[in-house]
């Protein structure tokens, strides 16, 4: 099996966008270019029902080919990991499903196979998930309401890096915040193999007023580097997988 790189944007926000283009549209653009968009919506402690604005969370992930989850601050660490891993499996499964269709014909997917065969294929998916390289760009909403949640976000990201770095495959992480000072997004932490050194850098996150989620996703897309973008364009039938 070919080794590849999975690319993910992990958007962490607590509300809805209010500036620029529709975030679902930019998410689907990213997905077409081989980058899945996952979204975690943080709920306020006293929120008991799903708030209106966070419907956007689900929509962005749907168009971005990713996974979404609403969560209270306390459970953020586990959620960040579950979402990232689920998205990896989902992308790899999509990839395997495509290959299956080529062998078995259209409309055949993993679910249509009997349990025994499914088990064998799932083993392949697992192997790929363990060994593939992974690039995660974390996009953190730093509008005013997020202020008291940022320390928890930081902890959750360090924890994510501990989990992913236990894999055999290599990882690269970067953190961007939005809105940026003059631009749509701002670099907080440049691409590197672990997130354990972010403690000194995180206070840079400043609280602003507007939430330009759409433009932020568009900008984040370009941070994955020109080379890989071009490649993904060429391999259109392999969303999320890039030849190493």
């Amino acid at each position, binding site marked *: 099996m070919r080794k590849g790189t999975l690319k993910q944007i992990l958007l962490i926000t607590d509300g809805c966008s209010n500036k620029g283009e529709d975030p679902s549209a930019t998410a689907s653009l990213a997905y077409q270019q081989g980058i899945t968009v996952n979204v975690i919506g943080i*709920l306020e402690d006293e929120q008991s029902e*799903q708030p209106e604005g966070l419907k956007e969370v*689900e929509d962005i992930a749907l168009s971005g080919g990713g996974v*979404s*989850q*609403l*969560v209270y601050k306390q459970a953020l*660490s*586990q959620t960040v990991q579950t979402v990232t891993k689920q998205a990896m*499996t989902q992308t790899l*499964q999509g990839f395997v499903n495509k290959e299956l269709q080529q062998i078995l014909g259209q409309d055949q997917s*993993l*679910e249509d196979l*009997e*349990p*025994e065969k*499914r*088990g064998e294929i*799932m*083993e392949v*998916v*697992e192997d790929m998930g*363990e060994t593939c390289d992974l690039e995660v760009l974390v996009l953190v909403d730093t509008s005013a309401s997020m202020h008291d949640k940022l320390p928890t976000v930081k902890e959750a990201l360090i*924890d994510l890096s*501990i*989990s*992913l*770095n*236990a*894999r*055999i495959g290599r990882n690269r992480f970067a953190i961007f915040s939005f809105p940026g000072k003059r631009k749509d997004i701002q670099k907080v932490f440049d691409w590197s193999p672990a997130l354990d050194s972010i403690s000194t850098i995180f206070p840079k996150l400043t609280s602003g007023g507007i939430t330009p989620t759409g433009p932020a996703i568009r900008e984040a897309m370009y941070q994955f580097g020109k080379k890989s973008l071009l490649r993904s364009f060429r391999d259109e039938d392999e969303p999320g997988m890039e030849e190493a």
Partner: protein
Amino acid sequence: MKMNQEWKKLNSDIHSGMHIQGKWHKQTYVIKRKLGAGAIGSVYLCEANGKLAALKISDKRSSMTVEVNVLRSLGKVQGNRLGPSLLDVDDWTAPIGTKYSFYVMEYLQGESMASYIHRHGKEWAGVFMVQLLEDLEQLHQQGWVFGDLKLDNLLIVSSPPRVRWVDVGGTTQTGRAIKEYTEFYDRGYWEMGSRRAEPSYDLFAFTMAFIHVYYPKRFVKGSQPEKLLFRKLDEARGLRPYRNVLKKALAGKYASSSQMKREMLQVIHDTQKKKQKTRKQIQQEKEAPFLLEAGGISILAGAYYLISLLFQ
């Protein structure tokens, strides 16, 4: 939350008395009652052909497939005690259309380890420790690490009392990233090691399970995690005889469970010897006239008191 909605769905889709027939193998199972639920799915007691079994069902189909793969692989081990044995794997579509995967396994009728130890005496902690280390040793030899080792996933079955584990959702091949874990039991959370699957990962979680027996409400890590864990170990009276071995496990000093088991057996042996010595002392005191008058019951009580002092 999305997850809550999924739970509600599952709970309204399945109720006792219901018949669940597999799509592929056509076996029918009658649901009796719910045994438990966790992050992946729900487990029900069921009956098929007059026999009881446990049925785990979930709409997280890929996670279920991964678990089945592990159970299949463990089932090939001779004299399999490593997890419940697997009986059937199938799919089921609820009347309202939700698609589920389920598997049927051996029903382990038992009680939680914490309640067993509290009801039958703390010397059982040592017994279960050795049993668990034995099973872990076997598991590790097969190239697996249990991963999500915790009280919820341990059951004590009776006659003779034996600890068994359920839920292989976290069981990972050695050298890979642990698939599933629970914060309180995870050495990564306590900043005391990686999340790579190796025997020492299980031995850490093992120790946390016994700490959890004596701190049912758990506790958070604070600013000095390692110090805190060692202090909690020192303060748990029931763990006093084993604490040096347990501390070494927390610090990742054991590369294998057999090594830890050897030292654990030594500790238990030494405590047993001390206990016998105390019994002898009591025997001698028994000959004193005033104790003779006191009668058998209070002598027994006195002996028990002395033994329990030793274990503090």
